[in-house]
């Protein structure tokens, strides 16, 4: 079938502001939006610019706004979008570098700010540190994050206050705060108790809806918030 793809385009070398362009592409129901973007780029206009790598939802390169929702272009099929017209725009709230490519630097800086690495104070044992399956299960969900930014850039609190650390960083803090092998949960809780930390979350659930990895983000944020309350009590 023929699909109309409406893409928000912007080339800083040519355009003063973003503008929508329309492309007609032939697509099957199982095609993904990424396939359609490739068709435009390879058959119609090589200047169309977007990031992508793995093409099966594991690398986090191609999160973008598709029909008004943040998703991975490689993980959303034409038949799931229903309808003959698909709109595509860059992730909201981050500076656009060109077409669908946004500047990710501030996003990664926030990720780094929560000390996203294991800090165990006891010396490394000869073999593995023991951890029960139950203890591991507590943070299993938040280990799945691929840092695609779909969550953070779907969050109204982030749009209103770009200094908000955002759901993705909290998810990654959660992953270590609840790891039984880690001894520095308190440091991360201090970072997140700050004015740009968890309290900016208004439990709107946009992040959870946007996450291509199905992470229960809002729940993770609530778990971190309770931990902060506990910690400061």
């Amino acid at each position, binding site marked *: 079938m023929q699909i109309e793809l409406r893409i928000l385009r912007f080339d800083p070398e040519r355009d003063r502001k973003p503008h929508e362009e329309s492309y007609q592409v032939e697509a099957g129901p199982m095609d993904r939006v990424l396939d359609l973007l490739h068709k435009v780029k390879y058959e119609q206009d*090589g*200047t169309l*610019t977007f*990031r992508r790598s793995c093409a099966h939802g594991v690398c986090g390169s191609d999160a973008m706004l598709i029909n008004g929702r943040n998703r991975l272009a490689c993980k959303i099929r034409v038949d799931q979008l229903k309808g003959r017209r698909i709109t595509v725009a860059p992730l909201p709230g981050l500076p656009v570098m060109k077409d669908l490519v946004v500047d990710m630097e501030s996003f990664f800086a926030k990720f780094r700010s929560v000390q996203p*690495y294991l800090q165990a104070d006891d010396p490394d044992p000869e073999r593995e*540190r023991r951890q029960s*399956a139950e203890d*591991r299960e507590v943070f299993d969900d938040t*280990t799945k994050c691929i840092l695609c930014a779909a969550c953070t850039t779907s969050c109204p609190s982030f749009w209103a206050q770009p200094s908000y650390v955002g759901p993705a960083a909290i998810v990654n803090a959660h992953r270590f705060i609840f790891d039984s092998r880690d001894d520095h949960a308190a440091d991360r809780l201090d970072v997140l108790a700050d004015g740009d930390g968890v309290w900016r979350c208004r439990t709107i659930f946009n992040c959870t809806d946007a996450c291509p990895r199905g992470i229960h983000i809002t729940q993770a944020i609530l778990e971190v918030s309770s931990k902060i309350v506990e910690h400061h009590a």
Partner: protein
Amino acid sequence: MIREHDAIVVGAGGAGLWAALELAKAGVDSAVLTKLYPTRSHTGAAQGGVCAALGNQEEDHWEWHMFDTIKGGDYLVDQDAAEVLAREAIETVIELEHMGLPFNRTPEGKIDQRRFGGHTRNYGEGPVMRACFAADRTGHMILQTLYQQCIKHGVKFYDEYHVVDLISEGGDLGAGGRASGVVAYRIADGELAVIRAKAVMLATGGFGRMFRVTSNAWSLTGDGAALAYRHGLPLEDMEFYQFHPTGIVGLGILLSEAARGEGAYLLNKDGQRFMERYAPKLMELAPRDMVSRAIYQEIRAGRGIDGKDYVYLDVRHLGRKKIDEKLPDITDFVRVYQGIEPYTDPIPIQPTAHYAMGGIPTNLNSQVTRDAANTVVPGLYAAGEAACVSVHGANRLGTNSLVDLLVFGRRAGRQMVLDVKGADMPAVTEAAAEPVRAELEAFRARPKGERKEAIRTELADVMMDDVGVYRTGEALERARAKVDELRDRYTRVSVDDKGTTFNTDLLEAREVGYLLDTAQTMVAACINRKESRGAHSREDFPERDDVNFLSHSLATKGADGAVALDYKPVTITKFQPKPRVY
């Protein structure tokens, strides 16, 4: 603009990140350059596991792992390297756990282990539980964990810098020169940066994108290998390319061997577990080359599903609980990309181009070597899928690539730490960027020429059809002619995007050139190897021939642009070549 570091690592997959970590921990001024954000590297796509003879589930020994690796590689493995791999697998996996990797756990809280193809107890008696894993996203966890540690240790990253050339002094790299830096294209604005260094490591991954059906990311275009080749270095064992048996039909997305490790069946159209006719002992867990060939045989005999070119992978009998706990991601892929429910339906699969056993030749310390005498290229290192130590020989066992990254990535880092001490900084000037600047400008300057896309697709078709699971002299000659034609057309490629901001059109054109180089060496090495060994299966030469071909091929760029082939002996220490039956 010129920048300088004592050591630079090109590539931020598992191999590059571990090397970078060693450098940072030792306080060496170093940096990682990567064309993707580090967490986008394809190591993150690895699913099934990483083998180490921990013996957490049952008796196991590194010697058994070493033997399996050698036999799995059809005796083309360098046995000293396999020994290093099997021994150091244990310490590197433990070290990863210490770094925080969330492995699945046994009831005692140890690292959980499962079965994987070709990994056996007591030198081939039966499958052994050796693969350490984190659900079916082991690679994701390895990549994340190493990146996290790099943040902790303050590793410097040049994210979205595409390395487009290698620099040497005292002659080209293949002619005795010393590696002295790289030229990198900053994707954001097209600036060409010259970075000089005392040590340069290539960890750029594989080149599966030269095939039509592949498990590899779009970014896997053989950049490091092709650049090394262009500068006169040989590529080793390029004829050995692995086709993984279970890819999603058409798309090639991988469904990990972990599925079979957990007990999944392969079925033909008669519902028969056909592997019983090909590998009665290991069945579905035979090495990948054998399983891929078995699937092709079934299809040829008309026993593909509905007579078509695929068979079934069946996980239904594993039950929902096991599927959800051990194989959540791959079953999700099946739902999303095939629209099938694996709880209730068998999954259509076919072999998918997956892994390069060959690559840039290195020694046990991950130093690049340039000839059959293993002469070291000063200042140049390689590890991971881009390199060939060789621990995989003619066919890699599942999980051994991740082990390779860990063990030889770490060794590369440690060797660079030693080598940069006392070495002087090479004298490199901005002029080093000029040759590649001209090459890139040529794409922009041509008004309307060949389309890179057409060239890439035609290459992928011919490689898939004529240089795939089964090969013949005739098909290979056809492929050679086609690759030559495409190389000629490539000289006339033009791009639509003439700008400097995030110009992926331009960089993809560059990448097609890398694929053409690596494909050219692969075809030449295939034509010359008139035997069948591991993944290289010649229908016109169906037997392994140890008299003439128990040797590694080295493909070098000849003066006329054609590939020149040389051979070097395989290192054999403990295990004499035997027929390979499972």
